[in-house]
Every structure is written in C-alpha cells, then in structure tokens.
C-alpha cells in the first residue's frame, strides 16, 4: 500500500506542476463559465415555470425533467458524439461549458422556482396595486427577495457543478480529472495524483459548501421566509393590512407593504428581547427547537406585520408629501424624485428612523389600543398595562394587553353578577320576611302570591337593571316557585349566609356544573320548601355565570377587534 505513495511518485507528479495548474485552471474556467450559463438558464426557466402561460410552464417542466432524469454523461455525449454527426462540433472545453451549464441550469431553475414560490402571492398583489407590471414586479420585487432564499441551495449547486466538471475526463476535457487520469495512466503512479486532485477539488468545493451552510443558517434565522405553512400563516397575518389600502410608494411598498416580511425582520427589528411567544401567534408553530437556536428568531421582533405596514404607510405619505413639495404638478419631476427617494436602502433608512421614533410614542399607542380594546377596563388596568408594556410593541404585547383587558372585564362582570345576585337575594329576603305572616292563610295563597309576586317582581326589576336581561322574571313566573317563596320561612341570618355562599359559589362554578344546577333547579321535583330558595339562587347564579361568560367572550372579541381597528385606523 505504501509504495502507491512512494516518494519518487510524488516527485514525478510535482515535476508536472505547471500542467497540474493548467488543468486546475481549466476546471475553474469551465466551472465559472458553466455557472454563468446555468444561472442564466436557471433564472429564465425558473421565472417561466411560474408563468401564467401554460405552454411556457410545460416547456420548463420538460426541460427540467429531461435534464434531471438523464445522466450528465449522456448529455455530454450528445455534444461530444451526436452533434458532430450533424456537422456541429465543439472543443471539449466548450462542450463542458455548455453541457454542464445546461444540466445545472435545470437544477437551478428548480431552486429559483421554489424561491419564487416562497414569496407570498400577496407581494405580487401589492406590487400590482402599486402599478407594477408583471415583469417589473418579478424582477424588482419578487426576485430580489427570493435571492436570499435561493442563495444557500445555489451555493450547493455551484459546488456540485465544480465536481461534475470531472465528467469531462471521459471525453478528454483537459481539466483536472483528465490530467489525473492521463498522468496515472501514463506513469501508472496512481496514488499521488488522485490525492492532489482530490485536494484541489476540495479547495474549491469546501468553501462553497461552507458558504451554503452559512447562508442557510442566516436564512434560517429568517426561516419563516423559507418554510411552508408557517410562512403562509405569517404572510396571512401580515396581510390583514390589505394591499390596496395603502398609499405608499415604489420600493417602500415592496419592502414593507403586504406583509413587509423582509422589512419587518431586516429593518424594523428592534427589541431583541425574546419573550414567551404568544400561543396565538401563527409562528408559534415553529417552536424553539425547530432548528436549534436561531440567531434571531421571528418571535424576537418588536413589530408585527400590521405595525410594519403602518410604518410603511407613514413613510409612503412622507415621500408623497416631499414629492408634492418638490415638484408640485410636474409629473416627470415626480417620477424622478420618486425613483430617488423610494430606493430600497433609503426606504429602509426611513423605516429605521421611524422605528426609533416609534419607541418614543409607544406608550401612547398602547394606551389607545387599550382604550379601543376594552372600554370596560378600569383606568387602573390601562395604566398598569401601559406601564408594563409601554416600552415594547409586539405580538406578545398585544396579547398581554388583550388578556389584561380581559381580566379587567371579567372583574367588572364578576362584580356585576355579584350585585345582581345580591339584588335577587334581597328580593327573596323581602319575601321571606313577609312569609311567616302569610303562612297561616295558606288557602288564599293565590291572592297572596299574586300580591307578593308583584312586589317580588319589582324587587327583581332592580336586580334586572344591572343586567338588562329578562330571564329573571321568566324564571320566577313559575307559580310553583312563587308559591315556594311564600311558603318558605327562613331564618334571616341563615338566608344571608346562604345567599352569600351562593354568590361566592357562582364565581367558582364552572359553566358545566352551572348548567347542571340550572337544569336541576328548573325541574318541578325540586320544589322542596327548605331548599327552594337556594335552588332558585343557584340557578340564577349559574345563569349569571353563563351570561357573564358569554358577555365576556363578546367583549373580548369586540375588544380584540377594537385593538385591530384602532391600529388600522391609525395606519390610514
């Protein structure tokens, strides 16, 4: 084994070093030129593969499938053996450039296609709403964004391309592999030359695959851009700002409108504090472990799509105003100024300034949002929310605000219900106080009960007023129950304790058990004198709890919508 690598064999090899270098140079040259062709073909066919014109898509499909499912060597042989028969011959170098370029063009086209596919369709719509043509939006808006996603697999393709140039050795391509073979064949010193060739290939390919890895990691920190469902969800979330409604201009539109995903995560990334992600947030599905620790995960962003778009809007107005000031009605001037002012970098700079300024007014926004979200929330809760969340604005902050509003609302409703139950208890109490006197004349119960029921209803009305709800009277219209109230003499203190108990109980009660009790209390067999007041109370409490829950849900919904509306309203 060792004599394969005997020193004299190395010597013989290194005597040929100019040839090694020349062959290496040929490999590099073929690779570079083939890469240019592959990129050109890949971009053209990649763009065509998402074309709206079906025949164009078919053409790219056929190209990609043929190129990917037939061995490269066979394709090289088409140029090497078949074309000369048609009177069309090329030097091995150019065969390499063309064949390998076309081969990898097919692969790159697929890469480009999936890159374009990963940009949300909303971007197209946004571009269209801003008056971009299909090709303008493709080359000015979509492709520049897709490039970041395309880059990692592209670097892998480049490395593969370099490796695949070795196939030319089989057609006397004059590149590194061919030199190795011919040297090995001529001298039968196989060992050293293959080691050197391996090293030289490694020198080109290793940096490329490292680059791919690096780019991939970087992209992964913006990984939502590249991954299916989560991307979809995020884009949808961001798209709550409908593209057509924004008066922003040019590239700023591309960068920030309709999700502004790129802007969001590249420019407006402010607060790096990684809070517990809200489970409501669509990106929550990604989780932390999805890819190991990302350098900057999507959850760390302070601005949601909506806010990003809002900022973009402001910038749009700003630009529009500046244009108006500078040019007045001069259309040509406006177009020129717009081009200079709406560049990507400039838009980003504006966004950044805005983002910084934004932090200053954060608390105001939060306060407004809170007010819009939860009208019933107490000022304390708002103040607290603002204090706590003033410094940040993020999905988590939104969530926290919403839940704060919710808590405040639920507290209020709890108080409400308590009052209502107290009121009802008071009414029953009044009945109960009169009851002993009436108890003797049980035979004229109907009259007595009618009288009492009038009074009772009055008392009930008091309770009802809290609730603008009519079930209480409905509940107590049942004659048996009315009678029961009359017939149930209760110790006052006892009653108080019980009603308080009920009021406290309804707070704790779960909806289901509340329903159960409500069902129980409405059944006729429950008209047992000693228990009936309790039952009625329990039923009321249960209903009150149900009602409160429903109301809370409604308020919560309204509150959340209010939050959204408020922000949207500001955006316009």
């Amino acid at each position: 084994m060792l004599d394969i690598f005997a020193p004299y064999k190395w010597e013989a090899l290194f005597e040929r070093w100019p040839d090694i270098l020349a062959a290496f140079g040929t490999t590099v040259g073929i690779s570079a030129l083939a890469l240019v062709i592959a990129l050109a073909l890949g971009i053209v066919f990649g763009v065509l593969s998402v074309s709206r014109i079906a025949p164009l898509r078919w053409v790219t499909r056929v190209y990609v499938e043929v190129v990917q499912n037939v061995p490269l060597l066979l394709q090289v042989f088409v140029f090497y053996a078949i074309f000369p028969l048609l009177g069309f011959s090329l030097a091995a170098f150019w065969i390499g450039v063309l064949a390998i370029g076309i081969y990898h063009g097919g692969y790159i086209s697929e890469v480009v296609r999936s890159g374009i596919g990963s940009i949300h369709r909303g971007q197209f719509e946004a571009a269209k709403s801003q008056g971009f043509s299909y090709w303008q939006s493709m080359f000015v808006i979509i492709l520049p964004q897709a490039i970041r996603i395309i880059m990692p697999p592209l670097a892998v393709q480049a490395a593969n391309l370099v490796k695949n140039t070795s196939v030319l050795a089989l057609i006397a391509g004059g590149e590194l592999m061919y030199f190795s073979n011919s040297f090995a064949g001529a001298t039968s010193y196989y060992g050293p030359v293959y080691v050197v060739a391996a090293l030289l290939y490694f020198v080109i390919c290793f940096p490329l695959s490292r680059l791919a890895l690096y780019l991939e990691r970087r992209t992964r920190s913006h990984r939502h851009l590249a991954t299916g469902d989560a991307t979809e969800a995020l884009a949808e979330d961001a798209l709550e700002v409908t593209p057509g409604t924004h008066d922003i201009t040019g590239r700023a539109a591309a960068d920030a409108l309709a999700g502004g995903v790129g802007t969001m995560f590249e420019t407006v990334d402010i607060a790096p504090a990684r809070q517990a992600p809200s489970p409501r947030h669509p990106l929550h599905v990604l989780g932390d472990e999805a890819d190991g620790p990302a350098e900057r995960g999507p959850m760390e962003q302070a601005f949601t799509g909506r806010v990003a778009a809002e900022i973009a809007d402001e910038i749009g107005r700003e630009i529009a105003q500046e244009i108006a000031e500078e040019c007045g009605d001069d259309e040509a001037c406006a177009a020129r100024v717009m081009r200079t002012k709406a560049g990507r970098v400039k838009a980003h700079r504006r966004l950044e300034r805005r983002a910084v300024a934004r932090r200053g007014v954060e608390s105001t926004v939060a306060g407004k949002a809170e007010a819009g979200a939860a009208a019933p929330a107490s000022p304390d809760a708002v103040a607290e929310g603002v204090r706590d969340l003033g410094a940040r604005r993020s999905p988590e902050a939104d969530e926290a605000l919403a839940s704060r509003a919710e808590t405040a609302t639920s507290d209020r409703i709890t108080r409400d219900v308590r009052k209502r139950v107290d009121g009802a208890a008071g009414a029953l109490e009044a009945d109960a106080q009169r009851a002993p006197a009436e108890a003797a004349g049980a035979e004229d119960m109907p009259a007595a009960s009618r009288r009492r029921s009038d009074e009772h209803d009055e008392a009930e009305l008091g309770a009802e007023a809290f609730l603008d709800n009519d079930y209480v009277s409905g509940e107590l219209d049942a004659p048996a129950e009315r009678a029961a109230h009359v017939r149930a003499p209760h110790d006052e203190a006892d009653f108080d304790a019980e009603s308080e108990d009920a009021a406290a109980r309804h707070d704790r009660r779960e909806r289901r058990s509340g329903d159960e009790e409500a069902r129980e209390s409405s059944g006729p067999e429950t008209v047992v004198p000693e228990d009936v007041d309790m039952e009625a109370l329990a039923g009321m409490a249960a209903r009150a709890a149900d009602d409160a829950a429903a109301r809370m849900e409604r308020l919560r919904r309204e509150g959340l919508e209010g939050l959204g509306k408020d922000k949207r309203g500001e955006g316009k």
Partner: protein
Amino acid sequence: MSDIAALFTWVNIRFLLQGLGMTLLISALAILCSVVLGTVISVMRTSNSRVLRGVATVYVEMFKNTPLLLWIMFTFFVAQLPPIGAAVLAFTLFTSASVAEIVRGGLASVPFGQYEAAKSQGFSTMQTYLLIILPQALRNMVPALLSQFVTTIKDTSYLWGAMALQELMGRGMILMNSYNSTVQIFAIFGIMALIYFVVCFTLSQIVRAYQRRLKEARTA
C-alpha cells in the same frame, strides 16, 4: 427506417436490459451499503465523543467536496479491486456522505421525547436507535433516499468510461460501435436516454407522491 427496425432484435434489447440490470444492481447495492454506513456516520456525528464526531465530519466533508469520478478511479486503480467491487465501494463511500446528512435529518425529525421514553423504558442506546428511532426516522427519509437512488443510477453511467464496467451506458456504447449509420446511432442513443429517463422519472414521481402523502399525513 428499416435501419432502425433492424436495431430492435431480441438480442439487442436483452443486451441493453442486462446493462440496465447491472446499473440497478450496482445502484441498489451502493444505496443499501450507504444507508448502513451513512447511519453509522450520522450517529457518530451526534456522538458525545469529540474524536468520533471529528472523524465523521471529516469523512462527510471529504466525500461531499470531491468528485465521484475521482473515487471511482481511486478504488479501481489504487485499491485494485475488481470492477463491481470497486464500483460499489466507490459509490458507497461517496453516497454515504450524502446519506449521512439525510439520516441526520431523519433522526432530527424524531421528537426528542422518543429517546427519553425509550431510555425510561430501559432500552440501551443501541436498542433505542434500532428499535425506536430508526424505524420512525426511516419513514421520513424514504423520499430523500429515493432521490439519492436516482442520482446514483445516473452516476453509474461513469462506470463504463472509468473502468469499462458494462452497465447500461456501456452496453449502449458497445451497441453503437457495432452499427454505423447515423440514424442508428441516434436511435441507440435515444433509447439509452429513454431508458434512463423512464427509470429515473418514475422514481422521482414516486418520491413526489410519497412526499405528498407524508405531508398529508402530517397535516391530517
């Protein structure tokens, strides 16, 4: 036209199909060996030992960043193995580097709780991998492995040029030498390309269908 008809004799067809058989045999052997070797390497890459990790990383980087043809030449000329052995070895070495990455992805797709659960049930590391993790990982790896199979089938076409092994490409070339009209050479070439295409395209369609099913299963 009669030139072309003259090609389609049973002898010629069988000759080519035997070549296809050789292509598939070598590819299948190479993939099977690669899965075993690739699994070992990817498990080494997740190992706690720095040495094992280092060895595995160097292995993967070495084979990922050098051309396959070089390893074919190397195994054939330097290791002086018989053609089929050299071919399978070269493909195994080269492909196992890619398969190691695929296996790594597959292993990563199995939730960590599965390891913990296995451990809590008293499985040894070996048992955990063989009985719990790999069967689950394999399901997610199938599409990528099939794609790798397609790549390997295409790459076996180097073997004729490198070591005169009579796989499909080689058989086609031999056939081409025994006919001399341009049309016949075109036809033979076309048939060769068609066979490769049909085999590889079918496999890639299977990959796609399988991926769709996996995706549906995941969303359902």
